[in-house]
């Protein structure tokens, strides 16, 4: 009895040892299964629930498009969705534009202690996100750093009120909070550029500007594209920043989604809004990648 058991086990073991994919899968499976259970199962439930409707304290589980119709019909949902996209679009553009020269500087003009500069640029990013957002409240507030110093210098008669609790405040805060996500990918793509290409361009008579537009910029585009997606995708769904510095005019879609699960208590609507947000983000990202690919191919 033990004999057959042992040989069976031995054979299984031999098969297990011999087959590389099987061993690989076995090793990968704990991670993969947990990620599948934690991502896919909730997502399926989310999709299902977005077609339900809320009846006071119970869900009506008959499938209907009620929530989606409401998202399309009610101006409030449309306004918040477009505003979220506009704010994080503006933030993405601002962050990339501000970070590019910084990354360029470290890639091309810093020759010693590059690592120190990279650490210096990413360090603030590791402090609490919540506290960094709160810090901007101190800076942009009615008696905040900007108003107080400008009034102290006599440049302002009375404090600027539009600084805090506005979409502008959200864009400024996000631009600061997500800087590292732009600097690092752009830096990596600039660092990868073969310096002999720049020498070649110079030898062939290109000036600094032409060389930048013709060689450096196109070759760094993968970094720019990665950076914009890394910033755009999460900031559309950001909750903390609009909640703390946005005010009523700067509220974004995540705030609206969160309310559906708290005060409003309409979970199916919250599910539908989350899904609508994700679909729009995915569509914009894919369109962006597609356009960027075509653009870079034409450039070559």
């Amino acid at each position: 009895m033990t004999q057959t058991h042992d040989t069976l086990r031995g054979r299984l073991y031999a098969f297990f040892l011999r087959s590389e994919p099987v061993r690989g899968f076995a090793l990968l499976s704990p991670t993969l299964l947990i990620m599948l259970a934690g991502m896919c199962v909730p997502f399926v439930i989310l999709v299902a629930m977005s077609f339900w409707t809320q009846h006071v304290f119970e869900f009506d589980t008959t499938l209907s498009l009620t929530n989606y119709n409401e998202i399309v019909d009610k101006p409030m949902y449309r306004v918040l969705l477009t505003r979220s996209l506009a704010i994080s679009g503006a933030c993405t553009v601002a962050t990339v534009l501000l970070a590019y020269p910084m990354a360029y500087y470290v890639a091309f003009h810093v020759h010693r202690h590059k690592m120190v500069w990279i650490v210096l640029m990413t360090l603030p990013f590791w402090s609490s996100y919540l506290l960094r957002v709160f810090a901007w409240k101190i800076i942009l507030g009615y008696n905040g750093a900007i108003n107080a110093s400008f009034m102290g210098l006599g440049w302002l008669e009375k404090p600027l009120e539009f600084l805090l609790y506005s979409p502008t405040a959200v864009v400024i805060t996000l631009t600061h909070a997500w800087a590292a996500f732009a600097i690092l990918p752009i830096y990596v793509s600039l660092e990868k550029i073969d310096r002999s290409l720049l020498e070649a361009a110079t030898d062939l008579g290109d000036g600094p500007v032409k060389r930048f537009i013709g060689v450096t910029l196109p070759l760094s585009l993968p970094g720019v594209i990665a950076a914009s997606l890394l910033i755009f995708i999460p900031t559309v769904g950001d909750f903390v920043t609009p909640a703390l510095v946005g005010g009523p005019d700067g509220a974004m879609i995540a705030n609206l989604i969160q309310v559906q699960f708290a005060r409003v208590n309409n979970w199916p609507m919250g599910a539908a809004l989350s899904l609508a947000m994700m679909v729009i983000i995915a569509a914009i990202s894919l369109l962006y990648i597609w356009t960027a690919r075509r653009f870079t191919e034409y450039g070559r």
Partner: protein
Amino acid sequence: MSEISYIQRPNRPLHVYAFGYIAFLYIPVLFLPLFSFNDSIYFAFPIEEFTTEWYRQMFEHQAMHAALANSLKVGAVASVLATVLGVFGAKAVTRYRIPGKKSLIFVIMLPLVVPGILLGVALLLMLSRLGITLSLYTVTMGHVLICTPFAMATLIPRFEGFDRAMEEASADLGANAWSTFWRVTLPMVLPGVVASLLLCFTISFDEFIIAFMLTGTDPTLPIFMYSQLRFPARLPPTVALGSIIIFVSFVVLCFSLWLRRYGVEESASDGVRP
């Protein structure tokens, strides 16, 4: 040489811009320690007298201590679990030919490209369908999900970086798979494991939106701080704690970067050696 210096000649405006940008990154963060010593409950200028009152209050704040303890617990458990999953995953994808490897890695990396609110909402729906009560366990679960991709991304280069022949040599000399892992593989990837633990802990410790959706009656520290931000009188001790956290996280991060660099330099010199 002249061409290179032409391309890389010093650029004064860019130099100034770089320092300006670093100031833009740091000044807002430094406002918190500044105001944590300010003798006023309002975070506004002008600055009043110097005080350590807020730090004293912080040490007596029971609810804050509870929240801090919760965050430390969640962070510790989540970072260990995520790193273990990361070790399994990283070893599997670097050591074995697995069909469809790219799409499997994509599935594991998915939380990186999904907005936190969506993941939080989806997990909340699943937990409520399963009838699981929200608690620190559910928050930990959410954090394991978002930390695992980071653990994998940190560990994969470590596994790629060391010579597979070492493991084979160990097997040839008669060590079984388990002792090869403990005696050979783990020591060699250890800097990566420590870096992954620190990274995952930092992410979990700082994470807000998933914890906000999945927390029960025990708040984690970010949730607690968020609840305090509305009340001016309760804010200063929170900011005092925040200043300490910023300081500690800077120290920890520098340590982890040093560790990672140490690892990289060591493997680089390994490559140079004949």
